[in-house]
């Protein structure tokens, strides 16, 4: 009886707390609505996880948008109109993201920066599509979002998961000109995901043959049986999806057996620990990694602006979000209006200077110029392969 009463009390407290939040949110919305209708601003929505356990992925995007918009408004805005931010939280939950999207649409948003998580973005995309609103994510890497072709209104400033696999396969086939390739992975989400894509691309290509596809057990005592198998498959190159501990064990055992097989891997291996652990055997290993932005003056300036405004180093996807905000606003500028067709055409044709480099978008909505490039270990350091 007593515990029943306590439960009721708790549920009452929850209802009151949530109810209170509903009221306060409703109110702030009203007050926020009033000024911008008269001023005819350009409304840039920012949606993503701004609270909850994934907030660290979403908050940097809000800050990036705030900095970009502040700078642009200081220069007189876009097309003579001020840019206004509409920030909405989706907590990275698909069921909440649909509400977030609906809310932004009813508020007459022009373009949206977001969302942050692939699942939430996918749930919200249909709503934006029906309302002809362009949305650009700084962080969703799920390949299907662009490649399915279902969402012509969706763009992103981050490379999708399959880009590395594509790069690895193309590099092996077109540049190294190998004919027989073995694909290995560490059975993890990341490694196996990449390996699956590599396998798909290899099967689709008639220039090279997939001779072996295997998952190795991470942490196994040794990999001699797998290494023998690679040798007997006749593979000229190994594409490995996974992280450096397994990669260094496999490469070491291959070289000790006198095998000269080319080793190509991903950014889980493009790490200095790999070179340190694999030592001399790391020499000549290829690995894909994100394009280097540390020398880009815009990136340096953006990070500096963040430090000055918020007093800390920027978090995840900050540069991607910064670039996305620039691309969206630039496209509106170039299109001369916020018209859906004109803006999406501008996004696909105009190149924009961003902290990630000069970028534009392909017909699927994936950024051209953002992505990965191939590195090779040369005298104990990773050097970009031109």
């Amino acid at each position, binding site marked *: 009886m007593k515990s029943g009463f306590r439960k009721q009390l708790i549920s009452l407290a929850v209802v009151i707390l949530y109810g209170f939040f509903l009221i306060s949110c409703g109110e702030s919305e009203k007050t926020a609505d009033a000024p911008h209708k008269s001023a005819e601003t350009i409304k840039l929505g920012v949606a993503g996880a701004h609270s909850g356990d994934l907030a660290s992925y979403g908050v940097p995007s809000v800050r990036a948008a705030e900095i970009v918009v502040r700078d642009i408004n200081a220069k007189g805005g876009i097309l003579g109109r001020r840019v206004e931010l509409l920030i909405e939280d989706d907590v990275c939950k698909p069921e909440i993201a649909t509400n977030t999207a609906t809310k932004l649409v009813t508020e007459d948003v022009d373009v949206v920066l977001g969302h942050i998580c692939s699942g939430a973005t996918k749930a919200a995309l249909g709503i934006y599509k029906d309302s002809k609103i362009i949305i650009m994510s700084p962080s969703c890497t799920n390949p299907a979002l662009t490649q399915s072709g279902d969402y012509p209104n969706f763009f992103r400033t981050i490379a999708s998961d399959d880009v590395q696999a594509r790069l690895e396969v193309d590099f092996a086939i077109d540049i190294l000109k190998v004919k027989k390739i073995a694909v290995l992975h560490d*059975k993890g989400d990341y490694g196996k995901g990449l390996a699956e894509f590599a396998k798909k691309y290899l099967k689709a290509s008639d220039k090279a043959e997939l001779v072996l596809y*295997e*998952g*190795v*057990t991470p*942490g*196994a*005592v*040794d*990999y*001699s*049986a*797998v290494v*023998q*198998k690679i*040798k*007997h498959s006749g593979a000229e190159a190994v594409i490995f999806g996974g992280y*450096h*501990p397994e990669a*260094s*064990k496999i490469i*070491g*055992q291959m070289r*000790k*057996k*006198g*095998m000269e097989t080319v080793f190509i891997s991903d950014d889980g291996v493009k790490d200095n*620990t790999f070179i*340190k*652990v*694999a*030592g001399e*055997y790391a020499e000549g290993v290829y690995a894909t990694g994100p394009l280097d932005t540390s020398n880009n003056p815009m990136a340096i300036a953006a990070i500096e602006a963040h430090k000055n405004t918020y007093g800390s180093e920027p978090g995840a996807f900050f540069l991607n979000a910064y670039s996305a905000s620039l691309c969206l606003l630039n496209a509106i500028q170039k299109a001369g209006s916020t018209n859906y067709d004109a803006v999406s055409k501008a996004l696909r044709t105009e190149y924009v200077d961003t902290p990630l480099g000069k970028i534009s978008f392909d017909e699927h909505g994936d950024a051209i110029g953002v992505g990965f490039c191939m590195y090779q270990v040369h005298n104990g350091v990773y050097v970009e392969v031109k």
Partner: protein
Amino acid sequence: MEYFLELILGGLTRGSIYALIALGYTMVYGIIQLINFAHGEIYMIGAFTALIFTSVLTLLGFNEIAVIVLASLAAVIYSSAYGYTVEKIAYMPLRRASRLSPLISAIGMSIFLQNYVLLAQTSDFLPFPNLIPEFEFIKPYRHIISSPEIVILITTSTAMILLTFLIKFTRTGKAMRATAQDRNMAMLVGVNVNRVISITFVIGSALAALGGVLIASHVGQINFYIGFVAGIKAFTAAVLGGIGSIPGAVLGALVLGLTESFATGYVSSDYEDVFAFGLLVLILIFKPAGILGRVTARKV
């Protein structure tokens, strides 16, 4: 045919390492019916000790052979000291407690040692120098078997022969066998049981350390977590062969190593563990005490 041979040799190498660790499990179990879960950590500590000594000795300018011998010796001595201390701290006070208490104590010890190395050393993977030199005479055949693999096979066989000799023909061995058969009876006829138990831990730890040095040098990297997987596999091998039986542990380890090697070679390494543990289940169905384990009547 060549492929088959390579898989056998690879399997035997892996099995030898399992055997070196499995012996520690099985000897301890034979004597005090305790599954010493901290045993995998002793193996890891052996590898770390060897790494530290190798770096120091190389800096001091010792030659290759001296480095291998001294580093291995240091690893063996240091790990034995650990094995001895662990037994004194974590198991001896619980000798008369129910069987579950030392088991929990063993798991606690395992977690403690892992985290101790994690904090005292590092959580990163460390490169382990290739201690075993490349032999000239093996070069033409190195696609079949590499020098480290030969060294592992020879060292393990030698260690097994010495162990068998120790247990079969020395007074200590006799005392160990007596304690394993009946601890109380051994005590009555004047065997210093506590000393025998300590010796068992020391020998088991020394073998595990040897395994640690050999495999770390073979694969070229270590971190604080390597003892876990190796320990689980060696424990499986000990159960497979019949826990408590010394030849059983070796047989079980070799069977496990070969099964994994063939599963990877002829089926897929995705199913390596499936085959290994599938075999374990199969053998335990038909021989519940393991391949060489004896079914002992329960004393009521």
